[in-house]
């Protein structure tokens, strides 16, 4: 988000049941708490049965819910094999955060994170999405503040899991940052 009229656009790619919608909602509400304009899209119906789910989150200006190919700043892939579906939307200098057990799976400039293992170890296998969001919060130019995301996490999802989810989100923010600067 470099100025008036610009938006920070994020593509979320995953499969039905992975918490893609939950992640988009957390991001959207965090943006709202920072007084930022925000629009998100969701996929319902057929695609919810384990099929591909692509979500668009626009933070900042923009009236239409979809953004164009080659324009997004960030792709968060909750499932490594859905990454390619989101890739066409990325701008050349964009970041990619991908959930994969294989660190070598992070091709040029991708940030590979074994979010499933991290989340499972920390106590909620279903919150791998929050690990990835924690990592996103460390990126240059990412408009959401960890505090605003944390405050949303403490109000969403099953009540007894909220402290664990918050911890999982923080773990994501502690990833090694050595891969980050490499352009794709």
């Amino acid at each position, binding site marked *: 988000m470099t*100025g*008036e*009229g610009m938006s920070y656009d994020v593509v979320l*790619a995953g*499969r*039905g049941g992975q918490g893609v919608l939950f992640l*988009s*909602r957390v991001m*959207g*509400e965090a943006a*709202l*708490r920072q*007084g*930022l*304009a*925000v*629009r*998100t*899209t*969701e*996929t*319902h*119906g*057929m*695609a*919810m*049965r*384990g*099929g*591909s*789910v*692509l979500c*668009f989150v626009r933070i900042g*200006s*923009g*009236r*239409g*819910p*979809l*953004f*164009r*190919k080659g324009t997004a700043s960030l792709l968060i892939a909750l499932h490594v*094999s*859905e990454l*390619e*579906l*989101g*890739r*066409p*939307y990325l701008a050349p200098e964009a970041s990619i955060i991908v959930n994969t057990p294989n660190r070598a799976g992070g091709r040029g400039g991708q940030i590979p994170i074994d979010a499933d293992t991290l989340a499972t170890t920390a106590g909620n*296998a279903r919150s791998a999405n929050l690990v990835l969001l924690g990592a996103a919060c460390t990126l240059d130019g990412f408009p959401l503040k960890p505090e605003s995301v944390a405050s949303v996490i403490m109000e969403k999802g099953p009540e007894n899991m909220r402290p664990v989810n918050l911890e999982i989100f923080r773990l994501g923010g502690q990833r090694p940052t050595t891969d980050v600067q490499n352009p794709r």
Partner: protein
Amino acid sequence: MCPRQTRHPLPREEFRLLLGNEAMAQGLYEEGCRVATAYPGTPSTEILEALSAFRAPDLHLEWSVNEKVALEVACAASYTGLRTAVIMKQVGLNVALDPLMSLAYTGVVGGMLVIVADDPGPHSSQTEQDTRLFAMAAGLPVLDPTTPEDAREMVSLGYRISERYRLPVILRPLLRICHSRAPIPPPGERKTGPGPEFRKEVDRWAATPRHRLALHRELNEKLKRMTVSRECLGAYRYLCGEKGTSGLAVVASGVPASYALDCLREWGLDGIVPLVCVKMPYPFNRERVAAMVGSDRKVLVLEETGPFVELMLRGRLNVSGRYDGTVPSEGEMTSDTVAAALNRALYSTGTGRVARAETPIETEAPGREGDGYSETPPVLCAGCPHRTSFWALKSEMPRGIYAGDIGCYTLGRSLGAVDTVLCMGASISQAAGFYWAFRQGKGHRQPVAAVIGDSTFYHSGIPALVNAVQQGASFVVMILDNGTTAMTGGQPTPGTGTLADGGRGVAVPLEDLVRGCGVTEMWISDPLDYDGFVADLRQAARTAMEGKMAVIISRSPCVLEIGQRQGPVPELDMGLCSECRVCMDVFGCPAIVQEGDEIRIAEELCPGCGACVAVCPVGAIRPGEPE
């Protein structure tokens, strides 16, 4: 950048991030809607659910048995002066069209909104039909929101128009309105209206053909008045470029209007290219729009899904769009579609800088394909009883023709157990058609099965079954009774007796209806008790071949409704496994996964239904030990 204020102000702290569907529900609550009816269908489903969450004591809401019934319930309530709404997806309107066409003649008293969600793409529908064409066919005004914020405001506008002209008003949100979120102010106070009063007016409410002619004349007069009214003229707005000098003008409605504004702003052309947004596409004032656009300009029309506004302007202006093929006539218009179409139109009129004039104009929905990759198709859930029902059907009627229907179980296609899908309820009537077709032949007797879900059976399977029985057809009807409308997120069916707000109603059991349709041979069987189920199905198949209609109710609750664990996770003995992959590739259970060379049953995905035990041809899958 454009100095013009955006129409939607920056959100304040108390705003909430709502789906377009939730925003419309808030509008219905605020505007004092007193009777709301719906049949679930993507992308419209969340409207009634969100309205129910307001828990308004002076509101009756219901999941009706189908869209026709829903519309009739709501319209009678609005005869009494109450504000009402009926909500459905676009193909639901096909079912409700009979009462709607007639209702346009009789009109209403209390404001009535017919909310019909369109699905360009299509993402979750059998057609891409454009509800605006149906509005014109019926002679009813239709509103076309460009954002979720718009959609909420149009609930209020729609009620005003409806009450002023005593006509139902169609509100047509596109999928990208229904299922996108935007900041919405907190709900305002709920309006109150007068109580119900029914004024008998037999020449209107029970009009005979002679009176119908008068009512038709009245309808046409209303539409004529409306085209020059404040509401209609106010529905045409410049989103940008009012004083623009370009040789191109853009006329847009729905979400494409929003994409067009985003593009023109980004390219710095919002002061040059006039963009006229049509918020009420019917009735249409051609003169007004032509005057706003200017007659010497080329006009690009951007809209979903059909060429409605384009046809309205054709012959009057130099227009292009989805009718003349400038933009593909099918598919979702994405921001990329709009950008490419604008680029080309700008190029042809020599306006502004044009970066990629040669970019093809495509209308493929996002996420269908990436660079050499295609989307992962949806599958039946791990533990879904439908999978087992299909497996049994294939094993007991291997040469069968399987007439399928609409719901989660359409996914039975991947098991090779669904041969046809046409529309809601067609499985039983199509099975009858196959039966009669093969009766005309002299050769073998063709086994035929209809597979239909419980909610779909209530919706429109009943007349088809009555018809088949009465005609003397005989085939197998398998009713998949999981006790819910699963595909759309688990709305209650009449079989459970649960109401839309969670309260208790009266249950109408499937088996009573089946008997009432004249069926004498019926089995009620649990597909997860596989051996018992197969035995029942075998008998049903034999009965059908002997010339009697055979109905098997496959009864087992939706795995999403009962939560995760049903039993122990089965054990896969890799010593016995022949790696034939039948359990993965044919049965298709997503809990059986391959990681590297290893095939395993993923404990975190498996709900322990145990169905795979019977599926393995070499007996390598054994029931798990109870914990």
